[in-house]
């Protein structure tokens, strides 16, 4: 256990020291060394916890008696909550967004009141470590550490290109580490007040990072993110209050173990789910995540794809045993499934790389949400797998887009035309990441497959329909992106590689992680996930994907790995003739120009299809937000009203 505290306070220490080191060299040194040490500590902690928890089928929970240290920490948390409230108040007044103060107040005040008046439930376990926590620690630690290292080179180039942005990299990186600290706190806490505190910190950091450039658009978007997340925080508060007053309980684990013993359980569950919707940017709260894309890429990769937005679905996965066959479950699956489908439609019409990534993040989070709402072990298994695969692949995608933007000055997918010639290494890394998102035999697809089976078995027709249509649209927008990367431009040269070495190392590490995950997911499931689910749901969970299928998929993986070798073999004894591509006989020599009727040379270019008239934001964004909002309102009322009656 001391390792956990060392990890926690070490990360906090890095955060503070980064904030105060204003020289670039010193700061970058601290970040690199700090990240590496943090990753080592993280892995060491996970190894220890894994051993101590008894190979996955047990868990560690810590009651932390009322010692002076715990009391002091409780006071620190209270002080922290007040500080957050004041910070939001000051910034809101500064920018004239008064409603945020109110939202922050109604979220924070009741929890503070609970603590101050001594109504908070005592003798509850404060921390809980089980195999899901360990997996989350691995994701947060490894992906987070790598992204922090990447941010060194990125910020350097970013400020080189964006001279109009005030240079505050120490603030940015310090916030990244502070965020990681909060994430560690969030996933290891079992006490809901503690969780809520860390939850609010992540919201606030996200708000600060979105507003990093201090431009008008950034400020507007950051406040949108803030109010939506604060609204979700209010949902969390209601759940805490309800649990404290009705059940005299402050522990999430105990709430879960109550199961269906009490009918009113739907109320806190629905409130927590509501909080999770805002955090995980489910429709109708999806717009803040799009706005968050104005922030520099490392924060998009870390907060808005790999970890922070995962906090919402993490909470849903935790409470998924409580959602079996009740209205809260129906609400979560409906919103999740709908978001999965609608966001993937919207992604089709976007050509800005980061926007596509944002929509696809929303869409995939929707799928995870839908899986956790089913409340069956197999579906929750799929949710956890999706969470892991998505965190790694999507953060890699973000880092790639960020690096391409710094190298070529554009993050538009159309400008990535022919990347395989211009930046072959980058194209390879991106291909792995994209394939990891949707193609057999890579990760996400495996999880989607398990999800499909679970939906059918739980007789959820609507979800199955959403899933099959959503898969088709997902395939379309990733496929056309891949197609752009793969276009081989004739007579084009490799661009000079100006991407920092450290960024390359990070991207290669993540690529290796994607492939490793694909190759080892059955073991991962067997060692970590299935025992945990067996315990949580109280039934024996066997293999989700049969070993025959796993074998076939491994064969496919090996075959794909052998493809380049085969290609090389073909190149060695080739007899074919190389010609230009067909342009009705008028190819001007480089595949991108043709000779017109007057003998002049004109460029020719075919962009991808965006189908703006069918799937454009103007056409379907507002209707789908309205539909989702209606779903949330109606189902919340039904769930809570039904429970009260």
């Amino acid at each position, binding site marked *: 256990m001391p390792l956990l505290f060392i990890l926690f306070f070490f990360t906090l220490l890095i955060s503070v020291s980064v904030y105060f080191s204003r020289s670039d060299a010193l700061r970058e040194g601290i970040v690199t060394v700090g990240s590496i040490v943090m990753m080592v500590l993280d892995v060491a902690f996970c190894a220890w916890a894994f051993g101590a928890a008894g190979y996955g089928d047990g868990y560690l929970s810590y009651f932390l008696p009322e010692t002076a240290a715990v009391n002091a920490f409780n006071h620190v948390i209270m002080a922290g909550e007040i500080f957050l409230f004041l910070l939001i108040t000051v910034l809101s007044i500064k920018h004239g967004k008064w409603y945020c103060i109110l939202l922050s107040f109604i979220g924070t005040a009741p929890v503070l009141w609970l603590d101050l008046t001594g109504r908070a439930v005592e003798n509850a376990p404060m921390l809980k470590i089980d195999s899901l926590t360990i997996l989350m620690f691995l994701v947060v630690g490894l992906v987070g550490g790598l992204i922090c290292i990447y941010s060194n080179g990125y910020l350097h180039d970013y400020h080189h290109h964006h001279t109009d942005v005030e240079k505050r990299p120490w603030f940015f990186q310090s916030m990244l580490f502070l965020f990681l600290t909060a994430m560690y706190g969030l996933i290891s806490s079992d006490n809901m007040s503690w969780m809520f505190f860390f939850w609010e910190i992540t919201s606030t950091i996200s708000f600060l990072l979105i507003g990093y450039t201090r431009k008008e658009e950034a400020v507007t978007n950051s406040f949108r993110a803030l109010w939506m997340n604060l609204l979700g925080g209010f949902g969390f508060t209601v759940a805490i209050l309800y649990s404290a007053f009705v059940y005299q309980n402050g522990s999430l684990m105990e709430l879960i173990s109550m199961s269906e013993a009490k009918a009113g359980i739907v109320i806190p569950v629905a409130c927590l789910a509501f909080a999770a919707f805002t955090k995980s940017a489910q429709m109708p709260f999806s717009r803040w995540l799009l706005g968050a894309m104005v922030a520099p890429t490392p924060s998009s990769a870390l907060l808005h794809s790999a970890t922070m937005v995962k906090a919402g679905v993490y909470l849903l996965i935790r409470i998924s045993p409580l959602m079996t066959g009740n209205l809260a479950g129906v609400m979560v699956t409906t919103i999740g499934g709908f978001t999965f489908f609608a966001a993937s439609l919207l992604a089709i019409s976007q050509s800005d790389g980061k926007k596509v990534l944002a929509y696809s993040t929303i869409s995939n989070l929707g799928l995870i949400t839908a899986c956790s709402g089913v409340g069956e072990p197999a579906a929750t298994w799929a949710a956890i797998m999706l969470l892991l695969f998505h965190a790694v692949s999507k953060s890699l995608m973000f880092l790639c887009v960020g690096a391409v933007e710094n190298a070529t000055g554009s993050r538009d997918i159309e400008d990535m035309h022919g990347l395989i010639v211009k930046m072959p290494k980058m194209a390879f890394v991106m291909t792995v990441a994209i394939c990891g998102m949707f193609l057999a035999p890579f990760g996400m697809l495996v999880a989607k497959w398990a999800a499909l089976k679970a939906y059918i078995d739980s007789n959820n027709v609507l979800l199955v329909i959403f899933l099959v249509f959503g898969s088709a649209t997902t395939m379309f927008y990733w496929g056309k992106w891949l197609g752009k990367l793969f276009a081989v431009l004739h007579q084009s040269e490799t661009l000079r590689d100006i991407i920092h070495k450290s960024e390359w190392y990070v991207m290669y590490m993540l690529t290796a992680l994607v492939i490793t995950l694909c190759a080892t997911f059955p073991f991962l499931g067997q060692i970590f996930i299935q025992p945990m689910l067996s315990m949580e749901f109280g039934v024996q969970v066997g293999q989700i994907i049969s070993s025959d299928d796993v074998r076939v998929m491994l064969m496919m993986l090996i075959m794909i790995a052998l493809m380049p070798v085969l290609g090389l073999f073909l190149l060695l004894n080739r007899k074919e*003739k190389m*010609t*230009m591509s*067909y342009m009705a*006989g*008028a190819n001007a020599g480089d595949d991108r120009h043709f000779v017109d009727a007057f003998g002049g040379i004109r460029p020719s270019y075919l962009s991808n299809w965006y189908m703006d008239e069918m799937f454009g934001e103007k056409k379907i964004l507002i209707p789908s937000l309205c539909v989702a909002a209606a779903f949330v309102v109606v189902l919340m009322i039904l769930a809570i009203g039904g429970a009260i009656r």
Partner: protein
Amino acid sequence: MKISRSPWLLHYDASSCNGCDIEVLASTTPRFDVERFGIINTGNPKHADIMVVTGGVNAQTKQVVRQLYSQMPDPKVVIAAGICACDGGIFKDCYNISGGVDTVIPVDVYVPGCAVRPEALIDGVVKALAILDEKREAMKNHATCEVHLDKA
């Protein structure tokens, strides 16, 4: 098996008056049913075995004819369809006409006529098939593809 069992056509109009083109297209209609011989009008040089050119080559189409020819995989045969394609026809001395197709690329079969009759064209294609097979044999023996130029 002889590769002439499956000849795929590419038709290109290099400044014809369209008279021959109408006849060429007419001969690929169901009425004449050239698919009996496995002939398909592909329109894609990369899939084609036989290139049918109509009209004398002019300054603008010269490069195009060359490029299309270069994009056809070996073995390949060129048919000059109509008198203009054979030697320039009535446009022979025109300022912008190079003459027949053979001034630009090697031609294997000449099918005269103004306009060329579908029957004559089909006959020309059948003659071209024999050359196609010969070229294939030559290719196997690593010889050059330009075997001989046959006047039909």
